[in-house]
């Protein structure tokens, strides 16, 4: 019988990584374009436990990357060694544009109720931002072209918001230029759309009709009230159930195999 870990045995960041890895169970044999950081760490846990046949593409042009030790950079040499093909960024990103990527997995600084993600700047003045961030990188293209997108970030009121300060990664409702009218992404011919947001508190999904984020699962030791308090809009919690507890084995794989040196500082 599987042994369960208890809340307190692990950190919120570890929970986020492990529940993300579980979500990836659905993608064994599929091809993902994975962002560096916690998405990559979760992917490594998932490949060891749940989806050994998942294929990882990285935007700096590694096809089927199989790192032996955890990379910390988007073109880390650790991604190159053992990959099937090593070209460059165009060869890494164009499969996405061609519609060949089953899922994308990214982090970010802000997410809104339609799953739009901001990784560009915080504030209201683009030319003098309150906080300048990393910019678009692959996040804009993953959200635009992957058949579906998973997002992960810490759950805080300033991050999970009604409207992102800057729309970097397109979610379900996006802006049609030149006027900036809000439209559904299909109207612009964008495929896919986000499937879930996995935070430090729970798993959020998007309503089939309204495409608005709701709480699907809350992690053991977390309450729906806590999620409401840490969300910047009035989030629907009526469908929320408690997530299956974390397995001791999942924690072991994360701590001893995926990131033994705690490079990602999840603990």
């Amino acid at each position, binding site marked *: 019988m599987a042994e369960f870990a208890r809340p307190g045995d692990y950190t919120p960041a570890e929970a986020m990584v492990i529940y993300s890895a579980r979500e990836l169970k659905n993608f064994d044999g599929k091809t993902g374009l994975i962002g560096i950081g916690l998405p990559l760490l979760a992917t490594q846990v998932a490949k060891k436990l749940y989806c050994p046949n998942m294929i990882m593409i990285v935007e700096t042009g590694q096809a089927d990357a199989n790192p032996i030790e955890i990379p910390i950079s988007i073109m880390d040499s650790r991604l190159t060694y053992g990959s099937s093909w090593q070209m*460059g960024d165009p060869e890494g990103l164009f499969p996405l544009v061609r519609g060949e990527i089953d899922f994308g997995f990214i982090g970010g600084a802000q997410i809104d109720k339609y799953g739009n993600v901001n990784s560009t700047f915080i504030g209201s003045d683009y030319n003098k931002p309150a906080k300048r961030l990393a910019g678009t990188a692959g996040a804009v293209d993953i959200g635009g072209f992957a058949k579906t997108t998973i997002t992960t970030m810490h759950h805080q009121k300033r991050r999970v918001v009604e409207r992102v300060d800057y729309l970097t990664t397109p979610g379900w409702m996006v802006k049609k230029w030149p006027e900036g009218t809000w439209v559904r992404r299909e109207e612009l011919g964008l495929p896919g759309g986000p499937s879930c947001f996995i935070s430090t508190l729970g798993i959020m999904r998007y309503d089939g009709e309204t495409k608005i984020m709701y709480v699907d699962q809350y992690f053991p030791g977390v309450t729906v009230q806590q999620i409401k308090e840490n969300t910047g809009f009035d989030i629907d919690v009526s469908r929320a159930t408690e997530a299956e507890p974390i397995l001791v084995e999942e924690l072991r794989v994360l701590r001893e195999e995926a990131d033994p040196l705690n490079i990602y500082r999840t603990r």
Partner: protein
Amino acid sequence: MKKSKLVSLQEAMQEVKDGDCIVMGGVVEDRRPVAAACELVRQGKRGLIILAECSLSEDILVGGGCAVAYRGTYSSIGAFGISPCIQRMSEEGRIIVDDIGHTEVCLGALAAMAGAPFIATKACLGTDVLNPAYDNVAKIRELARNKDVLPAQKYVLMEDPFFGEGMVQLHPALKADVFIVHVQQAGEEGTARIDGSLVFDHFAVHAAKKVIVTAEQVVPEEYLRRDPNRNQIPATSVDMVVEVPWGAHPGQVYNYYDMDIPFLMEYAKKALTQQGFEEWADEWIFSVKDHYGYLNKLGAARLEKLRAIPPFGYRPRMRGGMK
């Protein structure tokens, strides 16, 4: 034998003029022309416009007061945080930024290689990359020495007239005055061989009026020509070649060396303030005469700890690599 293109790093960087639009090869902290960036700071360049990304090597230019604008897709040093100088300068409103997408940069470089003025794509539709309120192309163009290097508009929207796939944007080709790329090996005529990710350097090399290759090793041109399929940059596109061993330190170069993590962490921390950056620059740029002075200051022991091990192309952490 054809004329050698070998020059010193000082001579090569003198080719970069104030107000030039420049692109640097590699990405984030990997295979970046850091020694070239330090030399540009040493030479006191001004008014540069940074295209494509603003990571390690470009951030040093920003901190060094060399740059007035940045137009690209990534302004972070990955695990080491947002590029500290561009972050600070942007938040103070002292540098002009214009964000574009990653696929857009690749497509711009592809268009340049194809000699096409623009390329049609669905990239960035629906996002604030296309928000006219954030379009700083015209402002940046005003500052360029050669205005014709930058597009007259950020993008044009149109309906796909061929396959009926709805709205697309026309994205202009990437053009630059100078492309500086760091590679593993180059011959004296400019043929260059890259190991690991090519980033978009194999396209961008065709986007610039002037191409400067800095190489870990300059090897006989004839040696690289024994296996031309393994080369990504043709001699015909290169203007100057410089031998710069450890030229991407503190970043990594596949098959040569790994990241100097403590050095990167120190940069990321110090450069959070202008004074901190200046202290860093005094220590690592101005107190040394040239790149060899920088290497002497680092010392052989420190560099040896970074050296890549076959067959990995990096230094495994369990085998003495930095953590």
